[in-house]
């Protein structure tokens, strides 16, 4: 009902502004912002699409955008069971970096980071990609050695990273406690200066708006309940709003990947678990970099609004309820106070959880499936926000060509058959 009225409204409106700029903002200020067009339409579901993308998270929306833009695909729908961007995209702590150890990971995440660097312009939507640096700490002899391995691999892959002494760290992060008497003293660290954060909602909205402008239909509140499969090939999708025919279907549903795969009759090597995050009340800037620590298990950044954004590891049990357990929060806040004593008197404002989809090797799946013309993109687990542009880009390529490109190829489902795993566990205990 809401949608119908909206449609009626959007049909009647004219002279809408759909290019964002300082000029258009000023012009619209004069007309009291009455002439902005809708960021995206709320179209009716059509009975048939060439390509249906399931999941209007960042990855799904990006996929649709690149399909429309780079592969000239027309007649695409992105469908979501809730509101667009309401999954992990709108719940994550937005750390972006490409300093992964394995070549395959460096490949996809660096591809993504390069796209981040021009994304706001690409989408004409400010995603607030802030290259404030991501600093990873080492607290034991063993971590220092692991760090050398990772830093050297990153360097030889041509990706930026810089090793820092505790003193240099203190200079970048004056509020950190580098007292050598700490339970796990800061012994060193390394920073990727091109890494940072972005505004998660803006990423979903920016891609949604840009995809919509290219004619992609974004259908919200439209849960997928099953598939139509004939002779091993996909022919359509069943949804709560009815059945749709589709030639190709890309599935990007993160924590629900296992559930949706089951609808198509196969299983995925995916664990779904709650991952929590929280923010403090907003305060004046005290932390200009993203800090991550494995031994003192937590990571933190300060948003542009002034809130400290904190996270740690996932809950240890499987669940689809977007709520985690309290002990995780207690652990991450103790870790935070341990490293940043001034946090103690600040206050937690909100905490929440999302369902993360993790593979046994902590790397994603970008792949064809046992069902022809059905493709899956999932398994990003605790760290897929940073991959949003890159993941959408290579997944669009896979859907369009029915063949993975060299960046996506290592992440095929087939690796679980052959055993060529890309194990990112060891490389990052807190993998964001």
């Amino acid at each position, binding site marked *: 009902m*809401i949608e119908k*009225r*909206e449609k009626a409204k959007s049909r009647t409106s004219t002279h809408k502004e759909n290019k*964002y*700029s300082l000029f*258009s903002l000023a012009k619209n200020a004069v007309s009291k*912002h009455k002439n902005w*067009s*809708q960021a995206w339409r*709320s179209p009716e579901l059509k009975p048939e699409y060439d390509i249906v993308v399931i999941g209007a998270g960042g990855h799904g929306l990006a996929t649709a955008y690149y399909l429309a833009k780079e592969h000239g695909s027309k007649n695409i729908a992105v469908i979501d069971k809730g*509101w*667009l*961007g309401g999954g992990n995209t709108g719940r994550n702590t937005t750390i972006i970096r490409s300093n992964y150890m394995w*070549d395959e990971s460096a490949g996809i995440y660096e591809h993504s980071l390069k796209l981040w660097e021009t994304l*706001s*312009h690409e989408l004409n*939507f*400010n995603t*607030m990609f*802030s*290259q404030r640096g991501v600093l990873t700490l080492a607290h*034991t002899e063993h971590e220092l*050695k692991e760090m050398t*391995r*990772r830093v*050297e*691999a990153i360097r*030889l*892959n041509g990706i930026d990273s810089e090793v820092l002494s505790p003193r240099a760290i203190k200079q970048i992060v004056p509020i950190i406690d580098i007292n050598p008497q*700490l*339970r*796990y003293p800061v012994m060193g660290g390394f920073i990727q200066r091109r890494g940072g954060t972005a*505004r998660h909602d803006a990423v979903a909205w*920016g891609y949604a708006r840009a995809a919509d402008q290219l004619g992609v239909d974004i259908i919200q509140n439209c849960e997928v309940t099953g598939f139509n499969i004939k002779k091993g090939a996909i022919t359509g999708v069943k949804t709560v709003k009815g059945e749709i025919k589709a030639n190709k279907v890309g599935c990007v549903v993160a924590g629900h990947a296992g559930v949706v795969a089951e609808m198509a009759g196969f299983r995925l090597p995916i664990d779904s678990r709650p991952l929590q995050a929280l923010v403090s009340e*907003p*305060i004046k*800037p005290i932390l*200009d970099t993203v800090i991550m620590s494995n031994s003192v298990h937590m990571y933190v950044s*300060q948003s*542009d*609004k002034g809130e400290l954004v904190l996270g740690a590891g996932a809950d240890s049990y499987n669940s689809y309820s977007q709520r985690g*357990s*309290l002990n995780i929060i*207690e652990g991450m*806040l*103790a870790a935070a*106070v*341990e490293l940043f004593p*001034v946090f*103690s*008197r*600040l206050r*937690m*404002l*909100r905490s*929440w959880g999302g369902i993360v989809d993790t593979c046994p090797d902590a790397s994603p799946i970008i792949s064809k499936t046992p069902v022809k013309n059905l493709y899956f993109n999932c398994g990003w687990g605790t760290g897929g926000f940073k991959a949003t542009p890159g993941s959408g880009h290579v997944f669009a390529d896979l859907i369009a060509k029915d063949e993975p490109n060299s960046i996506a190829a290592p992440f095929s489902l087939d690796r679980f*058959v052959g*055993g060529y795993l890309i*194990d990112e566990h*060891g490389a990052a205990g807190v993998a964001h």
Partner: protein
Amino acid sequence: MSSQRFRLREAGRLDRNAPLKFKFDGKIYEGFRGDTLASALLANGVHLVGRSFKYHRPRGHLGVGAVEANALIQVGEGNSTEPNIRASQVEIYDGLVASSQNRWPSLLFDLGGVNDLLGGLIPAGFYYKTFMWPRKWWMKYEYFIRRAAGLGKAPTGRDPDRYEKMHAHCDVLIVGAGPAGLAAALAASKTGARVIIADDQQTFGGSLNRETDCYINDKTTVDWCKDVVATLEGLPDVTMLPNTTVSGYYEQNYLTLLETTKPHFFKSTIQQTRHRLWKVRVKQVILATGMIERPLVFANNDRPGIMLSSAIREYINKYGVTPGQNPLIFTNNDDAYRTALTMRQNNINVVAIVDVRENPDSELFRQAKEMQIPVHVGFAVVTTRGYSRIKSATIMKLSSNGKTLTGERKVLGCDCLAMSGGWNPAIHLFSQSGGKVKWNDELATFIPSEATQNVLTIGGCNGTADLAKSLKEGLQAGISAARLSGNKAHPPATPSVQEPVQSETRFVLPIPTQKNKFVSEKVFIDFQNDVTLSDIQLASREGYNSVEHLKRYTTVGMGTDQGKTSNVNALMLLSQILDCEPEQVGYTTFRPPYAPTTIGAYAGRNIGNLFSPVRTTAINPWHEEAGAKFEHVGQWMRAWYYPKVNETMRQAVDREVTAARTNIGILDASTLGKIDIQGPDAAEFLNRVYTNAWLKLPPGTSRYGLMLKEDGMVMDDGVTTCIKENHYHMTTTTGGAASVLEWLEEWLQTEWPNLKVYLTSVTEQWAVAAICGPKSRELLQELCTDIDLSDKAFPFMGYREGTVAGIKARIFRISFTGELSFEINVPRSYGLSLWEKLLDVGKKYEICPYGTEAMHVLRAEKGFIIVGQETDGTVTPVDLGMDWIISKTKPDFIGKRALSRRDIIKADRKQLVGLLADNATDILPEGSQIVEEVLPKPPMSMIGHVTSSYFSPNCGRPIAMALIKSGRDRMGQTVYIPLKNKSIAATITNVNFLDNVSK
């Protein structure tokens, strides 16, 4: 110093004999004990206390308690300062220092105020549309945006206070000690149920504290409260927690309560517990959280002096303060009349009541008339004036549909405005519990509907406005909760109640604004985040029509008050714009905590030394005394090396390594994980979890084993010994002890429940001294006479029990160094004495203690692996050159299938090899990467990395181990290690350096 001009002569319940002085923005003011910062400032006529987040508009006090959106204050200084504290939640004490936030240079003149004039340019979400030019300038814009944002300031150093945690169980937890909550407590407690009742205020009573026009059993409400509290205090199973906010509601009726234990007025120099975080498991929760008053939505509704009507009543009746001498009342319901009447009774000149209802008809209305308070019915306040405080309000007549204004403008002078827009039940915790809410048309708000946990809602929280009904619901809920949690109960008598009867509310939202060509007046929905009516309209126009999109795009409800006063108004407006029912618009999810909660309280005592326990061995005191350097290994602190005076690490390690090969070295090996395995299926179990054969291991012997994950990758290693039939002693790596036990239990409990095997961690039960070197047998022989230690009687991989230095011991003849060695296990409490004895007697053999570094070198000299160093979760036994340990005949073991997979049997996998730098002085950095060809600059393709690297005194040169692609096929090949400033050439060799590298 200013006098308390707005203090009433009589009203209020504070200690007027205890005047206190405090500072706000550098100025000294006076208040009384019992005042909050807000009431004391109001007593001094101070309304302007803050600036808003975005437009930096002057702001005053809006409400009382957790609902306050405006009056956020920086309290205290230095280490103990706290930002963003609601002025109404700080009790004042002598010497309190507080200041306003987010303004520059001063509160009265704030440069940020230009944003208010720029308002047109910076509507909701403007930042998504701009700051993109010139390209790459975002970081520059961001710098300024960051500095403009944020509210108060963080403390400057370590928190001087302390925090505690408390675990509790109870039958009934009552949240909120207003009339409903107190009635519930009374009823439940009389049944013998264990009851906890918590309230965030210092005095129990909730809304009763602000009312003077109600009577319960012919007593004033305050007296009734006192009686109930006295009764409850006398009951042994009732825990009363004032100053306690119930903050989180988790699964299985698990709730968190934050108790403030250090009263604000008590300033002390000793470290004290400031908050106690209660974690309570409850059979039945009763939510009596009351209602929150809703602001009215009209132009310039945010000026200092515009307050919620109920808050004003509370200031008068509880604190004896009037927020103004010439108040104006603006309402859509009867309740605000009570504020007017209370003011009149205190001889305050009420300017007028402006009531949007066309023909209000109630006892309260008549009383107001009788008291000659002017009432403008069918009128609305359409705008206000005043900078640091409201000066006047303009009122006009509303059309009958409430959508337009008619007639003349009237300007009414006033110094404060009490507004009341209706009431919202505080359903936050109910929603956190997973309960569903539904829209109620009469109240125009959401109320609880279906619960998913054992929780009852009563009184205001349930949407019940009148006192008699709330008390009744309370009593009933108390009884049924007690019953549900297993206590017998009879319903108590319902008290008699006198209270004003209230009539209907008329919801006019928003109040229409007058068209004004020159300035667009702002109509605020969310005060703290400066979200206006036009922001909501804009968001909807742009398609942000889901409540969650609306919230995120406009930031409505995302301030530190989490939208307590704004959410319902916002979604009612959205439903109007979309022309649908509010029910269809829905509600955003409430997220814990209910109100912002001190981070230190969650950390509790688990910081500093208690952040993570430090594990040390029984022999640790000796290491410390010997001046050992320590290394973190998981939670353990292990002796790393024992430098003598003026010795470098390298010198010390060389000495220790040499001693172990020439005489005797002694290592504290107590940290190795140890698991006692018993049961008739123990051998079968080991056979499944290790890659090699275990069914025929005779008692008195040991075997080395590798454990794989399902994917065929090495997970842990260790020696397991058959103590006797069906009884084994497993060792694991130090770091892997806990995860291996968890892994084994998981298999036993979930995959092989039919196996009769019992696992017990005994890591801490045994102290282990490992002696190693050619003379170790001689030494042991001196201390152990009941075992034949000869090679024949006690061969390699043998196990014996006997007495060493008079202590019953388990001796394992195993070796991690390639030398003759014995690992002597004794009960932990004997560890130190065994160690000292061995050293004492060992003197004549030139025994030398060695640490973990020497241990690493010794094993590397022989090419033995360390799990976690040579492996990283991607390495198979075959990659390690340990094919010999994989049984070809066993039907199955964990990881077996994986080892035969396509990519696991490929020849170009990374394989473990030795690496010798061509220049015999170069020590390759551990972790450095290996290439076939050095390019002038990255990227370069890597073929492997250095896993271990040491100087080996026994080989007389540095040695290294590495994982290299097809490494075993490359023996003798030269590869390169490109470091930042230079490249090192090295040759690939066998890993057994000691036997292959000539000195």
